[in-house]
Each structure stands twice: as structure tokens, then as C-alpha cells.
């Protein structure tokens, strides 16, 4: 009788301790659970593969350090993917701390490329970081016609007219893809809705392999916000989605570039399992307690 009551109102410190152990033990002793990429991630990877070599793409870092564990592995993998395909990358941010996240991701990518003996991307020629601009959706509208008016300087204070890469990117019409790594608003919804409204090039139809003159919109979001973007995927307004750390791990698997997201899959799996066990336990004790109360009443 006492056990049911105790378990129904279990001290939350015990729950915290169990969750902590569920995260720490698999980190120290990895299980190596197999990662099978999901359909939205495969679509993201396949769409990026369609972008012709030498094309210009934009990556918007619409997040801050709070969501770094989920979104930073996506940023690293995406930049690695872009440079492996010899794409020219324009980085910008609709969140104030986004440019720093871009710089941190570039550091890791440079280390990875160096370790593989590949040439390092050159600033101003292969990639630029335009920094943060306030205004959300209106920044996206402005980029439809004139990058220079919205971003006269890059994050280092260099005039964008002095950056060779930006000679070829005058407006959004020069881009082959927009990637938004988003932790909220402004982020993916703004890019999807406002870019179409502002007259950005239309996306390719599903199955279309020649994407010349078309523009892809691809996103990476936290696990908690990813479900809200499925309507965009279903209507081809977005061509692929990385959802949470699992999405990042799937992407790392497809790129054969195991990183922190893949490492995080074992702890996340066990933590989810523990939470599910807690939910089941809580419901068993809830029913037992309810039955006891009914018996007492009769």
C-alpha cells in the first residue's frame, strides 16, 4: 500500500538522477546503436546533391548557443557537404548570435578538411560571412533584389563589393539553394513563406534532376519544432528537413562523417527509453492508486 503512494509521488531528485545516469553511462560506454536515416533527411541530402558544382548557396544561421547541441552538428555537416561539392557559400544570420555560430562551425570544418588533406576554403572566394541583420522577414524580402543594400559590409567590416564571391551574388536570384538552420522565429517559416512572396525562384518539382533556374529551400530545426514543418515538406515548399539531433546524426551517417550528433544518439536513445519507462510506471501506479481509492470508497 505504502509503495503505491510513494511511487505515485516519487521524489523528482530520483528522476533527475536516473536521467543523468541514462545520459552519462552511454556517453562513457557507447553502445553503437545503428543509425538509419529517415526520409526527410534523405530528401535533404539528395536535394543538396542535385546542386551543380560551383553554384552559390546561402546558409542562414538562425539560432543561438542554447540550441547548439542540436543545430551545430547540422551546420558542420552542411558546410562540409557544401565544400566537398565545391559550392560557394554565403553565410548570414537572422539571429544576433548566428554569425559566431557560423565562425565556430567553419573552424571545425577547416580542421576536418585539413585532416583529410583537402584544400581549405578561402574567405571571400569560397565563402563569406555577412553577419546578422535585424528585421526577420523584411531582410528576406530585401535580399530578393539587392544583397548590397541589406548587407553593405560583412562581419569583419569589409565592404561586400571587395569580396570576389559577392560579385556573382547580387540578389537571391543568383542562389541555387537557401538553407535555414532554425531554432525559432525568424527562421524556417520566414524563409519558406517570405521567399515565395518576395519572388525568389521557384523550387524544382519532386523528381526533377536539372535544377537550373530553380531554388531549393532546405531546413534544419530543433527536434521540438521540426513537426511543424511537415506541411512545407508535403507541399514541396521545402525539399528536405533535418529534425533535431537525430536528423543531424542521420545526415552525418549519409555523409560518412561521424560527429557529435552520432555520438549523442546512444545517450538520447537511453534517455528516451528511461522517460518512456517512467511514463509507463507512473500510469501503473496511477491506476493502482485509483483502484485503492475505489476500494476504500466501497
Amino acid at each position, binding site marked *: 500500500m505504502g509503495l503505491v503512494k510513494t511511487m505515485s509521488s516519487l521524489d*523528482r531528485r530520483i528522476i533527475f538522477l536516473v536521467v543523468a545516469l541514462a545520459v552519462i553511462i552511454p556517453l562513457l560506454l557507447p553502445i553503437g*546503436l545503428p543509425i*538509419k536515416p529517415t526520409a526527410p533527411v534523405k530528401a535533404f541530402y539528395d536535394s543538396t546533391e542535385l546542386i551543380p558544382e560551383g553554384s552559390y548557396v546561402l546558409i542562414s544561421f538562425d539560432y543561438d*548557443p542554447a540550441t547548439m547541441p542540436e543545430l551545430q552538428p547540422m551546420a558542420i555537416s552542411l558546410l562540409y557537404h557544401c565544400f566537398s561539392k565545391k559550392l560557394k557559400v554565403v553565410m548570414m544570420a537572422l539571429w544576433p548570435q548566428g554569425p559566431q555560430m557560423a565562425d565556430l562551425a567553419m573552424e571545425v570544418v577547416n580542421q576536418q578538411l585539413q585532416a583529410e588533406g583537402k584544400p581549405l576554403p578561402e574567405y571571400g572566394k569560397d565563402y563569406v560571412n555577412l553577419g546578422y541583420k535585424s528585421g526577420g522577414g523584411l*531582410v528576406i*524580402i530585401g535580399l530578393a533584389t539587392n544583397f548590397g543594400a541589406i548587407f553593405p559590409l560583412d562581419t569583419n567590416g569589409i565592404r561586400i563589393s571587395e569580396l570576389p564571391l559577392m560579385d556573382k551574388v547580387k540578389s537571391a536570384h543568383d542562389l541555387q539553394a537557401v538553407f535555414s538552420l532554425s531554432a525559432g522565429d525568424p527562421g524556417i517559416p520566414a524563409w519558406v513563406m517570405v521567399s515565395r512572396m518576395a519572388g525568389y525562384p521557384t523550387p524544382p518539382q519532386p523528381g526533377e534532376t536539372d535544377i537550373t533556374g530553380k531554388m531549393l529551400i532546405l531546413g534544419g530545426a530543433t527536434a521540438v519544432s521540426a513537426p511543424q514543418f511537415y506541411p512545407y515538406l508535403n507541399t514541396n515548399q521545402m525539399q528536405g528537413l533535418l529534425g533535431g539531433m537525430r536528423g543531424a546524426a542521420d545526415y552525418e551517417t549519409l555523409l560518412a562523417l561521424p560527429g557529435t550528433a552520432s555520438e549523442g544518439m546512444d545517450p538520447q536513445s537511453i534517455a528516451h527509453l528511461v522517460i518512456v519507462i517512467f511514463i509507463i*510506471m507512473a500510469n501503473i501506479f496511477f491506476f493502482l492508486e485509483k483502484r485503492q481509492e475505489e476500494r476504500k470508497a466501497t
Partner: protein
Amino acid sequence: MKKQFPLAIVFIAGMIFIVQFFSPAFTPIQERFTHWYIVVAVFAFVLGLANLTRLNLQKIHRQQEGWIYSIPLLIGLAGMALCSFIFGIEEGPFVWLFNNMMLPMSATMFSLLAFFVASASYRAFRARHKEAVMLLVAAVIVMLGQVPIGSAGFMEHLRLSDITQWIMAYPNMAGQRAIMIGAALGVVAISLRILLGIERAYLGED
């Protein structure tokens, strides 16, 4: 005049943004307004900064509950701002503070969610009625199907990952779409009320 002038500005600016969809003649004005907005939006930061400083100084002065936390807040605020003004944001102390304080502290705060989610789900996720049972079953499937353990060992035969993808792509999408359409209609309604001067909360009126 104090009220009519802002109302007139809102009406004219709003109408230009609507009309430019139908007539290219208004596009240059809309582009100019877009650039103005980006500049004006920066002033929100200045206002926010001033307000944050004022409120926390007041809190310290009056020694209100939790006033002690306002001290590191103000030191952090002033410290980061000064470092960026003096040494720039690409290198130096600002970058060091960002990488070694801002990053781990923000990530820690977000990571705490895992503990609170576990505790809250233990206390609140109860199968009290059939709708709650449906939610509970869907949540358990998605939680396991979204992680590799859902397709490992005996759970592979349960095809939790496939069921999760189905839940996300159909019931979830339908629900999300309904929310989006509802929210969009709400935005249209409130926008019209603002443009027509019916909704005046932004002027400080109730």
C-alpha cells in the same frame, strides 16, 4: 493629432505593402520602407537595452527579491558590450567570453529541459481518458521511433521508426496545417484591425 498621426502612418505603410502585390508602381516605395524597417528595428535593441538596465538598477536599488542576480546580469551586459566595442567581435576577449561562458551556459540551460521533461511526464502524463490514452500511445511510439533504439533489437520488428514517420507525415501534418491556417486567418484579422485603427494596443491603449 497625437493619435491620428500614428494611425495614419500605420494605415499608409500597411496599404503600400498590400497594394505593391497588385501594382509594380509601388514596389520602389515598398523596397525603401523595407530598408527603413531594418534600420528602425535596430532601435528596438537600444530600447530593450535601456529598459533592461533601468529595471535591474531599480531592483538593486530597492533590494527587491532576487536583486543579487541583477548584479552579474549588469556586469555581463556591460562587460560583453565593452569588450566588443574595444576589441571587436571577431577576436579577443569578446570571442573568449562567448566561447567559454555564453556557449556552455546557454547549452546547459537548454539541456536542463531533459530533466524537467522526465519529471513532468512522470507526474502529468496520465491516461485519464481516451484522448489522453491516444496522446500517450503516440508519444511513446514517437519517442522511441525517433531514436536509434526504436529500430534496434526486438523493437526493429515493431517498426516504430516507420510508424513514427507515418504519424509525423499524416496526423501531425494535418494538425499542424490546421494550426497554420487558423493562425494565418488570425493574423489577417488582427492586421486588418490594426490598419483600420480598431486595434490600438500598440499605441498604449487597452
